[in-house]
């Protein structure tokens, strides 16, 4: 049995300025309790343009145009910095404009729930036709559009959720049932956003890595939404619905949930399925969340910053059979926070970082790069949540000091050498461990690093079912190049060859 490998990745961001105001929960809550608040009046002045979003160094890092090392060169804060040479198309994916994305929501809608205005539809059709890889069979699903009057009526009288672009109503998501709250327009809107951004990530994975979509055999979707009706709220299956749009005709799939830790759970599951020989190619995919748009907006505005949570994120990874080249997923070096682990920070970090290292007789300093919760500090620091990756690196380093694997005075060096700046948007599962997998694959292939540990953590208390914390981790390392040990000659076989030769020799001697 040999390890599975990371064959490719796709990373996407969608700039959704109108959805900040209409669908971000900080803003919708404010509209309910304090509709005339200064915050809501001030907010439109703090929205960034698409160009500003594209030029923003952390966003360029997310799609692969700027490496984590290059991002480090930019002095913080980053919101007033610009990456010269920024492009909406990146090495790993793309940053999509809101109008194209609204079109994509219509494209991935299989129940005629999304209505788009006629002229807007024509405009989007033109834009998507100019997109660098969007195929005609998907674009044609936009159809011809609807009259604005019928859309207005749906929003005003029939509980539909409006779709806005530049402050203008351009379409809506209709409810799918009169009384079932799980099929309300609000839920369907969020689910179609997660599906559309997941599809975009999956399409980029295929496009950027020259993958045949027919080779995919299984899909694990790991976002934070739930789809189903009133009889099975989280029935699923986002995975298969994304696979349908991405052309994974030979795949089935399922949804894995675990808050922010879900992507790392999903990677481990994918690695296990491939390693066990059940499926050859497994895609791990997730779309993003509109609810979290502008989540820390009040703090950002109070401090005179733009609204920095203005993108929906998505990613897709392909875990496949060992090809002797791509980095391997060390399923024997997996960490997990168990029910009995406890919640103190050192118990948490110990279970996720040092326990798997102990299994491989490794020290904390033997891992070249740790990928933790890679939240962009530009977003979290003004909101009083500090620099999340840095705090994680400090904790890992401090544990190293307690284990006497490094001196206390070496803590800052450790963070500098084994850590990275965070670049991912605060979209829950999106920043958690996985943002570095694309770079890790390259860095390992180029020999820049030999290994990395991907750590995913999740706050389960938010669901009110348990107060337990959660997390899992896995080590990815350089492929030693041996593909199939079973085909080689085993030690036992060599022994029997030697024994046979000795017997021959002995009998030969006796004859003489």
């Amino acid at each position, binding site marked *: 049995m040999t390890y599975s490998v990371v064959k490719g990745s796709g990373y996407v961001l969608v700039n959704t300025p109108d959805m900040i105001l209409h669908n971000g929960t900080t803003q919708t809550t404010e509209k309910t309790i304090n509709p005339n608040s200064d915050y809501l009046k001030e907010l439109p002045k703090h929205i960034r343009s698409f160009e500003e979003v594209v030029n923003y160094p952390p966003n360029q890092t997310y799609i692969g145009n700027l490496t984590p090392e290059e991002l480090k060169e930019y002095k913080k804060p980053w919101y007033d910095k610009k990456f010269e040479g920024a492009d909406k198309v990146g090495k790993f994916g793309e940053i999509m404009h809101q109008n194209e994305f609204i079109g994509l929501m219509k494209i991935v809608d299989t129940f005629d729930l999304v209505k788009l205005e006629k002229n807007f539809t024509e405009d989007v059709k033109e834009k998507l036709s100019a997109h660098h890889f969007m195929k005609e069979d998907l674009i044609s699903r936009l159809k011809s559009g609807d009259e604005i009057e019928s859309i207005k009526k749906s929003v005003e009288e029939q509980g539909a959720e409006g779709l806005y672009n530049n402050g203008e109503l351009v379409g809506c998501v209709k409810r799918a049932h009169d009384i079932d709250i799980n099929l309300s327009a609000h839920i369907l809107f969020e689910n179609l956003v997660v599906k559309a951004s997941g599809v975009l990530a999956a399409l980029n994975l295929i496009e950027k890595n020259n993958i045949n979509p027919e080779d995919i055999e299984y899909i694990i979707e790991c976002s934070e939404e739930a789809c189903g009706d009133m009889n099975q709220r989280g029935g699923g299956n986002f995975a298969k619905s994304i696979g349908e749009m991405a052309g994974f005709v030979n795949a089935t799939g399922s949804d894995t949930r675990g808050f922010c830790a879900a992507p790392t759970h999903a990677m481990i599951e994918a690695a296990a399925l491939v390693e066990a020989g059940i499926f050859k190619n497994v895609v791990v995919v997730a779309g993003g969340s509109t609810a979290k748009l502008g989540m820390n907006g009040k703090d950002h505005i109070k401090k005179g910053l733009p609204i920095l949570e203005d993108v929906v994120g998505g990613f897709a990874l392909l875990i496949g059979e060992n090809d002797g080249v791509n980095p391997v997923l060390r399923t024997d070096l997996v960490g997990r926070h168990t029910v009995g682990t406890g919640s103190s920070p050192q118990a948490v970090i110990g279970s996720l970082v040092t326990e798997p290292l102990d299994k491989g007789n490794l020290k904390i300093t033997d891992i070249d790069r740790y990928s933790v919760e890679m939240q962009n500090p530009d977003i979290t620091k003004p909101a*009083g949540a500090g620099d999340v990756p840095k705090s994680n690196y400090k904790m890992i380093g401090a544990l190293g000091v307690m284990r006497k694997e490094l001196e206390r005075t070496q803590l800052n060096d450790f963070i500098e050498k084994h850590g990275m700046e965070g670049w991912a948007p605060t979209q829950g599962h999106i920043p958690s461990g996985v943002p570095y997998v694309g770079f890790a694959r390259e860095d390992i292939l180029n020999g820049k690093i030999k290994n990395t540990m991907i750590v995913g953590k999740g706050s389960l208390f938010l669901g009110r079912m348990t107060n337990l914390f959660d997390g899992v981790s896995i080590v990815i390392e350089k492929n030693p190049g041996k593909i199939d040990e079973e085909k080689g000659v085993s030690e036992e076989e060599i022994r029997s060859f030697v024994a046979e030769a000795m017997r021959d020799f002995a009998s030969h001697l006796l004859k003489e």
Partner: protein
Amino acid sequence: MENQNRVKEAAEKYGAENVVVLIGGAEAEAAGLAAETVTAGDPTFAGPLAGVQLGLRVYHVVEPEFKNEVDPDVYDEQIGMMEMVLDVDEIIEEVKDIRDEYCKFND
């Protein structure tokens, strides 16, 4: 918000003089905010403690007043690592300032 409710209920049930609030915020600013909430009232005026001056005794777990009360082995096991990670002096200063200003009980 729910935590504010729980603190308020505990103060009502057991009496403010019998309640000590322990906080574990990782940032001085956030710790100060939590301390202010249970003494002078919710400064953001968003939760149940808005305008409610409970004046409770409040300590951060890295403060000596708490640390000295705890078995050193247990403290080391549970908090030792975080003590190395957090800006302890800044947190203590922030929380102590709030306590000196708003706590109603002088020990």
